[in-house]
């Protein structure tokens, strides 16, 4: 088909001849005959209508649930229409990285606004232009803490295991030691952390709220990390930051997290966006692009990519990270989402997450499930039951509801957001009650 090549076969041949080539074979004669491909084993090209049918058919094979009670790292929140409309403007969708500032002020300003919003959410001084996702943000944050004298990473076991896995994979690369701090009653065992962390500790990583939905004692974590000369990294759910104390207030040096809850669809895992923010002392250690404000030669306010000499295209093997492409359009999505809901809306969404998850818990308890941990939680909690988790989830599945995430044979991690209605939660409780009976 080759349908996006505008020039006709005749034009192509004319151009070839005009610049001294007989045909395409002649043009490609530099490729050794022995590696020239005889047959590319793909299907023939399709018309747009055929392609649309093929791909739409695939989409329709996925189950569409009427309600989702699963989080565990991907959260089903409402996405305002304006968010989707703005971020599908073709200038934003198709532009490259804004290296040419004069014709990229739109993208650059949008990133500057994103950085500002992330600093506001986290209470930090500096945000980068984003990284791939929450997991890579966590791994990059750990790398920021490493220097000649501090090289061991301490990561709480109450962290999302998927995030831990990314940290460990990155540390496998850089030959860095990772030590897991155990949990106690569903939160980080900070006394144990204090015992474990010794001279040479680079950081303590905790997740807030943690993987089990529980709220960690971040102040104590900060004291322990700082006491031994290490940094505190907090992986935060940004939806919670509208009402919960900021990582800065808790004493963290670096705040990271998965930006997906703020306007991005769950979309089978991506694209998402990892946010990273830190105190000003660590500004030069933060990886990836940063947009800065400056002036043009006529004194107008202008934005540029700045502190670029930290980055791979200049520092090459001495760069602290290899990141080049990031998730700029997803960062813009976060920015538009935050502008659309505003402070009041973000607080409202966060409150509704708290209210609804607590309502869900109380109804599930009445239905026969037991909460596993005590202590406060944001919008996720863990239950256990004598009935196997599989049986509960299957019963919900049969009613077209995606239940919580199975942690073990009998344990389920539930999540509720502003999207879940009372009526739907009552239905969940009724189904669970029937299974437990």
């Amino acid at each position, binding site marked *: 088909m080759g349908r996006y090549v505008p020039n006709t076969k005749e034009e192509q041949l004319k151009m070839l001849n005009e610049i001294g080539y007989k045909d395409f074979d002649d043009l490609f004669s530099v490729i050794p005959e022995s590696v020239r491909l005889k047959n590319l084993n793909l299907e023939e090209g399709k018309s747009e209508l055929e392609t649309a049918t093929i791909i739409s058919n695939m989409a329709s094979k996925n189950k569409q649930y009427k309600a989702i009670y699963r989080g565990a790292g991907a959260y089903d929140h409402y996405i305002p229409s304006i968010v989707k409309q703005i971020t599908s403007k073709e200038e934003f969708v198709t532009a490259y990285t804004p290296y040419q500032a004069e014709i990229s002020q739109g993208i650059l300003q949008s990133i500057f606004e994103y950085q500002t919003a992330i600093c506001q959410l986290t209470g930090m001084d500096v945000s980068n232009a984003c990284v791939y996702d929450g997991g890579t943000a966590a791994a990059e944050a750990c790398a920021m803490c490493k220097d000649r004298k501090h090289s061991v990473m301490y990561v709480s076991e109450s962290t999302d295991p998927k995030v831990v896995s990314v940290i460990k994979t990155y540390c496998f690369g850089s030959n860095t030691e990772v030590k897991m701090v155990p949990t106690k009653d569903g939160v980080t065992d900070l006394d144990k952390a204090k015992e474990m962390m010794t001279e040479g500790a680079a950081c303590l990583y905790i997740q807030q709220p943690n993987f089990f939905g529980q709220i960690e004692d971040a102040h104590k974590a900060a004291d322990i990390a700082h006491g031994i000369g290490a940094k505190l990294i907090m992986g935060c759910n940004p939806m919670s930051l509208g009402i919960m104390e900021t990582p800065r207030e808790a004493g963290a040096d670096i705040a990271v997290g998965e930006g997906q809850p703020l306007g991005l669809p769950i979309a089978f895992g991506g694209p998402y966006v990892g946010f990273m923010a830190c105190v000003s002392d660590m500004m030069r250690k933060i990886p990836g692009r940063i947009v800065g404000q400056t002036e043009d030669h006529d004194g107008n306010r202008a934005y540029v990519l700045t502190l670029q*000499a930290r980055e791979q295209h*200049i520092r090459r093997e001495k760069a602290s990270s290899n990141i080049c492409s990031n998730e700029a359009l997803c960062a813009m999505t976060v920015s538009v989402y935050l502008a659309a809901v505003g402070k009041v809306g973000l607080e409202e969404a966060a409150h509704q997450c708290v209210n609804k998850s607590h309502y869900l818990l109380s109804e599930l308890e009445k239905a026969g499930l037991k909460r596993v941990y005590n202590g406060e939680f944001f919008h996720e909690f863990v239950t256990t039951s004598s009935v196997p988790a599989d049986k509960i989830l299957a019963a919900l599945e049969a009613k077209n509801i995606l239940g919580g995430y199975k942690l073990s044979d009998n344990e389920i991690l539930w999540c509720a957001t502003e999207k879940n209605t009372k009526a739907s939660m009552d239905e969940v409780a009724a189904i669970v009650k029937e299974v437990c009976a």
Partner: protein
Amino acid sequence: MNTPAELKYTKTHEWVKIEGNTATIGLTDFAQSELGDLVFVNLPEEGDAVTAGDVFADVESVKAVSDVNCPVTGEVAEINEEILDEPAKINEAPYEAWFIKVNNVTDTEDLMTADEYDKFCESEK
């Protein structure tokens, strides 16, 4: 180009002032003008060992990063915090904006005099 006669120089464009057992080290006027406006400096820590000919610091302009080599061997006694805050000083007054002071100095044999360095820069152009 300014090349003070009382200093010694390297082929990688560092200057060094040796006083007894101590050396003060910086970037030459020629180097700063070739590099353009400097925006950041990475310095070693006090107590670090440095070796003649090895990289001990780097300087950043907007679009480039360049290594700075140590003219002598020794131990870092002091770093100039001022250029960390204001790297522009290296452009403005390269022979005042020193990078580090080094103690227990050895390996000073290969250094050039001001005249030799001027000639060397001429040949580099």
